[in-house]
């Protein structure tokens, strides 16, 4: 299978806070995103997850290495890679429907067309009844759903999500996991999803990459299929409490905690 986006030995360095030396936010990261994959990046805070996403989105140019979208170098952000942010980043002067069609409006799509497409995706995230609402009257979970619908409406090849569920309460969060998986299955996008919840990562990913800090790099990769089991049974709790799930969860947790205690001391 061909890669939609591929990173080849990508490194990113930032100047250190004290001015002397550099922070290696990413070092020699190589990664391919193939059709229909749901790649989840997991890792402690500061291990370069957001930096990785910013490089793919085109918000940040790597210090060295190569990043390609369908074999062409990525030079900046573009509508082929949609982004969903941790804090919704919607535009408060537009209502739900206007926010959702905003991308198509920027691209000059005719009004009829963009409204019908926006409505389709609002239906997909279950917000058809809230078209006219100002976004500041929605709950956090609903705002994230608008953010997802907005990104999907532009019909990108790839969807980038930086801890999109991080600010939600536990119950809303589990519902949203299912909703995102459902949207993924129906739209067939390549997804890159960042989280620091091990359970969320295992549940949603088809491929899980575990990252570790200083320098930021990928230490482990797992190909998993718990989401398929969820699609078959429709029962998220059963998947999350199955013995295989728990065993892998403990394994990943021990990797993350092992690293944390490992380099905590000088």
């Amino acid at each position, binding site marked *: 299978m061909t890669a939609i986006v591929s990173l080849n030995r990508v490194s990113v360095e930032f100047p250190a806070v004290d001015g002397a030396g550099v922070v290696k936010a990413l070092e020699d990261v190589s990664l391919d995103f193939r059709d229909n994959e749901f790649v989840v990046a997991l890792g402690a805070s500061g291990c370069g997850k957001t930096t990785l996403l910013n490089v793919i989105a085109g918000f940040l140019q790597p210090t060295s290495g190569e990043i390609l979208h369908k074999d062409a170098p990525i030079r900046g*952000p*573009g509508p082929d890679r949609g982004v969903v942010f941790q804090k919704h980043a919607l535009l408060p002067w537009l209502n739900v429907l206007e926010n959702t069609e905003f*991308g198509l409006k920027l691209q000059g799509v005719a009004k009829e067309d963009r409204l019908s497409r926006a409505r389709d995706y609002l239906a997909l995230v279950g917000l058809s009844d809230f078209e006219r609402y100002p976004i500041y009257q929605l709950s956090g979970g609903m705002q994230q759903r608008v953010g997802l619908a907005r990104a999907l409406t532009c019909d990108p090849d790839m969807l980038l999500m930086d801890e999109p569920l991080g600010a939600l309460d536990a119950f809303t969060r589990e519902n949203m996991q299912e909703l995102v998986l459902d949207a993924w299955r129906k739209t067939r996008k390549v997804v890159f999803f960042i989280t620091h919840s091990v359970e969320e990562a295992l549940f949603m990913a088809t491929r899980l990459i575990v990252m570790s800090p200083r320098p930021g790099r990928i230490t482990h990769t797992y190909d998993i299929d718990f989401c398929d089991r969820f699609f078959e049974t429709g029962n998220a709790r059963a998947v999350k409490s199955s013995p295989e799930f728990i065993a892998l969860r403990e394994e990943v947790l021990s990797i993350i905690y092992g690293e944390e205690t490992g380099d905590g001391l000088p």
Partner: protein
Amino acid sequence: MMRGLFKRRGPQAVEQYGAPGQGSGTAISAVTIVLILGGWWVVTQLGLIRPLFLPAPEMVISKFAKIACTEHYFEQMLVAVGGMAKVEAKCHGFSDHALHEHILWSLYRVFGAFALATVTAIPIGIAMGMNRHARGVFDPPIEFYRPIPPLAYLPLTIIWFGIGESGKLFLIFLACFAPIAINARAGVRSVSIEQIHAAYSMGASHRQVLRQVVLKAALPEILTGMRVAIAFGWTTLVAAEMVAAKAGIGVMVLNAARFLATDIVFLGIIVIGAVAFIFDLMMRRFERALVPWKGKV
């Protein structure tokens, strides 16, 4: 009967422990206003202060009627509807102009200068927020002149522009310009980098980001700047009208002071206050209609 009175009140907002300044102050403000006006009236009725220093309220009201030529215009109206053959009451006004002419002249100066300031300061402020070159160029002059009182550079405007209207407009323009530019610049910062990134990753051009994201996000602060600016405009009006103006509220006040006509000074002050207050109310209405999201995200 007392219970019936209390029952009619709707559910009261629960007091929140420690929240500063909670509760409504409107009733207290009403009492304050009544006390001030009442005190004014009582003091003048008892003759405690000479009218030269504090004219009685009814003197101010009768001056209002005289300068506004209420009788003259009322008779004119009667003539128009056929209730009277000929206007008999004369209109003297003050300094050769009726009150509404003074007001219109001042409105023209304040709003002319304000409009000029708006169309120049908004683009410059936005440019300063968006671009370091623009910020580098405009920051020093604006920050330098901003704290200088308009009276200090009034002589300069006379030397530059002479004693015509343009000098007056320029003085008020300067007073209005800084707050709008500074607020527009600050407004640019109220757009989040995520909102900008989101727009770019939906295919926006730089121009679209500027017009459809940055400008919209800056709008609440731009409007705040405009509100501050119009208040500065009124503050500067009297200084501007000190120089050879024929009509205007400021002229009226200054001429009245020369003749020690304290009642007219009072009238002028009250008119300026009232007009400024009405425009501030309108701006707030406008703000609520235009940026309903303000303070909510």
